[in-house]
């Protein structure tokens, strides 16, 4: 049934995903059987017993105990088997192996923040080594979000008042999408992340240095990348159109008015401050909804973003 899997289910990123899919396919087969049975009988009856005339006489069949017991007990047995099957595989997903790599996850409107045991932090992109169990310990800073990685068939709500956890063990290198599955407002559908599965060596290197691009790319180009990857683009447009935050177009060097304060000139210092302490001076007409990026950007990355904004004439 591999053809069916490839049509109807996403790629299997882990051995656990394979297990869930086996169960999914088993249920499809059972459902197909019963649907064909019901639809088949229905079609046959509609054709065979169509009304011939107003004087048709039908037999009086009030019930049939054996038949009724049969169609109560057979589904009950099938459903009981499915219950245990589903419960068993669920428990696999609930208990992480002791040696798992632990990554803290914070969900907030509308981004994912990851923190590794060594203190390294990333936004919307989490690198994990292939073949190792990784455990995510999650909480939210505002409303309920839900961490959903379809390739691994795992999902867990991310709550503001307690920790929840989830684990996965990727079996090959690749990039997988991370969704927010619990509705969380305007930017819900843009609250996407990437789970990047690296080989052991690449993962070590990435952890030690930050990635290649961050170290060598020209500032403005790096800024353009960060603009997308750090989520700036979900609120700040480049074409002057209004979103949740001011557009970056032609903003550098201009005077701008500030809610509850004197106008300021948009220069390097103002941009840097707005990235690290967004609530300090809010451009008039906008809400102060931007989260701080303090500790989330390397020094070179902040410079890159400033350079990028500068370049948007």
């Amino acid at each position: 049934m591999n053809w069916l899997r490839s049509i109807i289910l996403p790629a299997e990123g882990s051995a656990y995903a394979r297990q869930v899919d086996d169960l999914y396919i088993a249920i499809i087969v059972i459902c197909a059987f019963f649907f064909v049975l019901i639809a088949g009988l229905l079609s046959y009856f509609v054709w065979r017993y169509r009304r011939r005339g107003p004087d048709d006489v039908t037999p009086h069949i009030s019930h049939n105990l054996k038949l009724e017991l049969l169609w109560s007990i057979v589904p009950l047995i099938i459903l009981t088997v499915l219950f245990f099957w589903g419960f068993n595989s669920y428990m696999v997903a609930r208990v992480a192996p002791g040696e798992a790599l632990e990554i803290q996850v914070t969900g907030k409107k509308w981004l994912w923040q990851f923190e590794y045991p060594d203190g390294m932090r990333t936004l919307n992109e989490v690198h994990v080594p292939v073949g190792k169990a990784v455990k995510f310990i999650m909480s939210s800073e505002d409303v309920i979000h839900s961490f959903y990685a379809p390739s691994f068939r795992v999902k867990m709500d991310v709550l503001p008042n307690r920790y929840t956890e989830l684990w996965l063990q990727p079996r090959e290198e690749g990039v997988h999408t991370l969704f927010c599955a619990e509705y969380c407002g305007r930017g819900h559908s843009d609250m996407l992340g990437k789970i990047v599965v690296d080989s052991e060596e690449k993962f070590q290197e990435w952890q030690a240095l930050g990635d290649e691009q961050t170290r060598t790319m020209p500032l403005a180009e790096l800024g353009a990348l960060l603009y997308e990857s750090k989520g700036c683009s979900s609120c700040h447009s480049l074409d002057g159109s209004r979103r949740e935050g001011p557009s970056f177009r032609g903003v550098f060097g201009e005077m701008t008015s500030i809610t509850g304060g004197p106008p300021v000139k948009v220069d390097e210092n103002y941009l840097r401050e707005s990235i690290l302490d967004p609530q300090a001076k809010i451009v008039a007409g906008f809400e102060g909804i931007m989260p701080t990026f303090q500790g989330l950007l390397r020094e070179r990355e902040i410079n890159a973003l400033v350079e990028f904004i500068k370049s948007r004439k």
Partner: protein
Amino acid sequence: MTEVITPAAPVHRGPADLHYLNEHRGLRSWLTTVDHKRIGVMYLWSVLLAFLLGGIFAMLVRLELLTPKKTIIEADAYNQAFTLHGAIMIFLFIIPAIPAALGNFVLPLLLGAKDVAFPRLNLASYYVYVIGALFALGSMLTGGVDTGWTFYTPYSTTSNTSVSMMTMAAFILGFSSIFTGVNFIATIHKLRAPGMSWHTMPLFVWGTYATAVIQVLATPVLGITLLLLLMERVWEIGIFDPRLGGDPVLFQHFFWFYSHPAVYIMILPGMAIISEVVPTFSKKTIFGYKAIAYSSVAIAFVSFLVWGHHMFTSGQSDLATAVFSFLTFLVAIPSAIKVFNWLATMYRGSLDLKAPMLYAIMFLLLFAIGGLTGIFLGTISVDVHLHDTYFVVAHFHYVMMGGTVIAFLAGLHYWWPKMFGRMYSESWARVAAALIFIGFNMTFIPQFIMGSRGMPRRYYNYLDQFQPLHGFSTFGSWVLGLGLLIVAGYLLGSLRKRCDAPGSPWGGMTLEWTTSSPPITHNFETTPVLTHGPYDYSLPGRRA
């Protein structure tokens, strides 16, 4: 069986000169009426209006989803559109549609009664419904709501849209639902025609009874929950909002403790209609009367114990998850029993494929898909993957629309001649039914695939890979919409004709067919006395 059964059906009365529609005239006579038939008709127009409004929002949502980025509306407007679609369809349309609109009209007729037990309470329930609807409209006009119809905290306690007013609307509508439930329970207990025992009641009555019990027992929980939500928003007392020391998941428990049984408030009356339509158009007694009747009650009971299956990924304990999963599977059994019973009723029957029967057959197919796809969602590990994806959206539309709405259409076509004394065009009805069936499946089958592939619900923007399926689904919604418009067209068109419906257009055996169409104000000229069961088409001693 020595008893000679006197046929009830073949009393072919012509239209009465004076009936409930024309005996009193003028707006005032409608607004102050305590006639269950008139209240049912007022409910009918109201819920159909709500259906239209909710449908417009649905079309808007589907249209926006035609392309992966913005198609016609902004994210905020989209979030409001799906919220209002859900809230209107659930609270203003589906919950009252069958019990309060069709049920109000036919329940006393089925029982051989003059009216419901508390006619004034009945009118009050309608006015409470209207007030609730006005609050819902008020909420739309004062900023709308963007929380989803489920009002999950803490999003709903912090959203600056008009959540409080919509919450009030749902709270008020709950009372309307409770009034109807109380009234029906009393009516069924006390006002059955002489000779009608619990086991010779039409099955629609059993379904309505089970529904009424849930309405009375579960709705107050929703009321309290919404009140707490309101207090949280206004006074910040700290029940659900974690910043104030509350627990947002507690809201989900409270909410689903009502809203899962509410799913059965919606589907049981639908099943009840099918249990009437299938025997009538098969001209054959219902198979397994007691199994169908008691399975309604079983569903009503177990439905209170499965709410946690909405929360497998919410962080609730694994033990709770396991128990809820098992109970969820149990609730599937009585539904399966009903489907097999309806099929067995058709076996060796004399099937007449008139419009109500077409919808009943459609119901069987779509409800089977809805029920079977529920197995995926009851199975814990599979549900974890599918939860909050389009698979769930497709599943509940198969149950709620493919099940309840299609059954509502079956009932509407079945009792339309009784309600208004007019027949509608059978050929248009066939065209519309075909379009609805094709359009519905075009809309929702792609959503099963999208959901399985990981497309989360309530997404304004989506990944490009899902565009073909979303596009197909949107085209389907147009076909579905067209089908429904045609139904509206020929049904409304039939009202312009003179009364032409016979008392018993389908040859049904239940009591509503023994009076004229439309019925006289007091329903029956003399109190009917039951001499046969509701589906005794071919007992020995009775010639067809």
